[in-house]
């Protein structure tokens, strides 16, 4: 029995290590040929051997920021409303609806984005198609909302009832209690929720791919979020089908994947460190 368990564990470790190893190995031709400098080259034309990763990096950063800009205030406010202002039955209804929102598959979000968000953006901002960083950001905001909400709800519920009552007994009004007692104590949990949500926004593929426009160029000027652009994930999703196995293009796409993996690992380590600090 124990031998089987150990065997299974080792198999799991081995296969995970093997997968990541193949990821790294397959990017090697790309790094050997172009090196790290491709990180700040801003042109990506696989047919002319131009592999600048910057546009997609900037695109990913933009959609993460836009998504967080909309989702954080909304999700946090909803969590506060949910844990402090709603009555018990409504709280569980809210929980259920968040669960539903989290359960919607990303490709369905893509469909929503494609047929609701894009026409709307097209009309509002008078764009050609509506494909834009803003569309991807808004869609991602919807997708990371449940993560932020659930983590913030849990964090707020984790604040002991005694603390609330102690603050109330000191005659502090509701706003002051929220700002001086609840939010500071729930903050570590909220922060890990934000980090997890950022990771999700970074790694989301289908929905982003359908609405971002997949145009490989830097937004010009850099704050122009109403034009089609590209993110790391949408590039992989769009071009994986075209790239021949073993070609430089394929290797470059693997490099995109490696960058994604590294950034998401960094985010995970931040979450872990936070959790460790919170335990102390």
């Amino acid at each position, binding site marked *: 029995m124990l031998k089987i368990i150990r065997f299974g564990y080792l*198999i799991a470790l081995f296969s995970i290590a093997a997968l990541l190893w193949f990821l790294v190995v397959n990017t090697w031709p790309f790094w050997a040929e172009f090196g790290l400098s491709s990180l700040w080259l801003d042109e990506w034309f696989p047919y002319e051997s131009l592999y600048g990763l910057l546009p997609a990096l900037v695109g990913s950063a933009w959609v993460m920021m836009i998504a967080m800009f909309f989702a954080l205030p909304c999700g946090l406010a909803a969590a506060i409303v949910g844990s402090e202002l709603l009555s018990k039955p409504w709280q569980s209804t809210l929980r259920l609806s968040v669960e539903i929102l989290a*359960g919607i*598959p990303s490709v369905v979000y893509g469909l929503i984005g494609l047929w*609701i968000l894009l026409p709307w953006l097209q009309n509002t901002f008078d764009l050609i198609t509506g494909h834009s960083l803003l569309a991807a950001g808004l869609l991602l905001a919807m997708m990371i909302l449940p993560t932020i909400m659930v983590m913030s709800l849990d964090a707020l519920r984790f604040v002991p009832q005694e603390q609330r009552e102690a603050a109330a007994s000191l005659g502090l009004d509701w706003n002051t209690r929220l700002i001086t007692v609840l939010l500071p104590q729930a903050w570590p949990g909220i922060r890990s929720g934000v980090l997890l949500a950022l990771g999700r926004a970074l790694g989301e593929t289908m929905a982003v791919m359908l609405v971002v426009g997949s145009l490989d160029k830097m937004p010009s000027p850099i704050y122009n979020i109403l034009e089609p652009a590209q993110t790391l994930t949408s590039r992989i999703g769009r071009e*994986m089908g075209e790239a021949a196995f073993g070609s430089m293009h394929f290797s470059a796409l693997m490099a995109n994947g490696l960058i994604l993996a590294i950034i998401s690992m960094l985010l995970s380590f931040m979450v*872990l460190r936070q959790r460790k600090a919170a335990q102390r």
Partner: protein
Amino acid sequence: MKILLWFLALPALLLPAFALLYIVYQALPALDWSLFVGTQDTKLHFGANQALWQQISGSLLMMLLACALASPIAMSIALFHQLLAGPRQKLFIHALLQVLQGIPPIVYGLCGLVLLVHLLHWGISLAAGAVILAIIILPLLSSNTIHALERIPDEQTESALALGLTPFQLLIRVWLPNAWSSMLTGLLLSMARALSETAPILFTATVFSGVVWPDSIFSPVTSLQTHIFYLAQEGYNQHAIDVAWASAVVLLGLVLSFSLCAFFLRRFEDH
């Protein structure tokens, strides 16, 4: 302040119901029996006349295979964590699971594409898709199983061990009866996850049409998720779009039936 909070929270509170209703509303034109069994109407080209049960069965098959692959491994990770791991190894396992969970699914898809599809010559196949989905749900399933086992009170384990039970007997007679429902919750959540992942199987397991039922595990399948993706981009074919929405409703129904089962199971447990 309260008013401001309500105002900010309003989208989040209304969004789920709105999204759900809107999807169903859009799907209504195509939601009928012929959607599932297919039509002979040749005017409806580009796959819009396909029978949806093929896609549904492809998705479910891949999900079941993935769960069948991932469950024993997740179980052994969890048991290793509980029975054999020292404190440092426990920390390592937790960190590893957290990190693996954070890696975007498409990265696993890329790895699987290289290793399974090309290097092992499996080709675009059901097996490749199932293995990739299994790896994607592995961290989630393992950490849920670990949590399920950790929730068992120490006294129970200790008193069982004091009676001289072997680890196997401990698992069967004490842990499983205590933790089966939370383990099931974890499994249901992983199933929902496996059903909703699209990007990693797009190039590794699925084709758009032409497969009714996979001949072997090394032949490609059709899946609901990728079906929606392909149809969604058919901007000039209204019927294709309707079918896409209808497929979305079917997929959503499947995913939610798993995740809401898990939700109510967990709530039932807490009470």
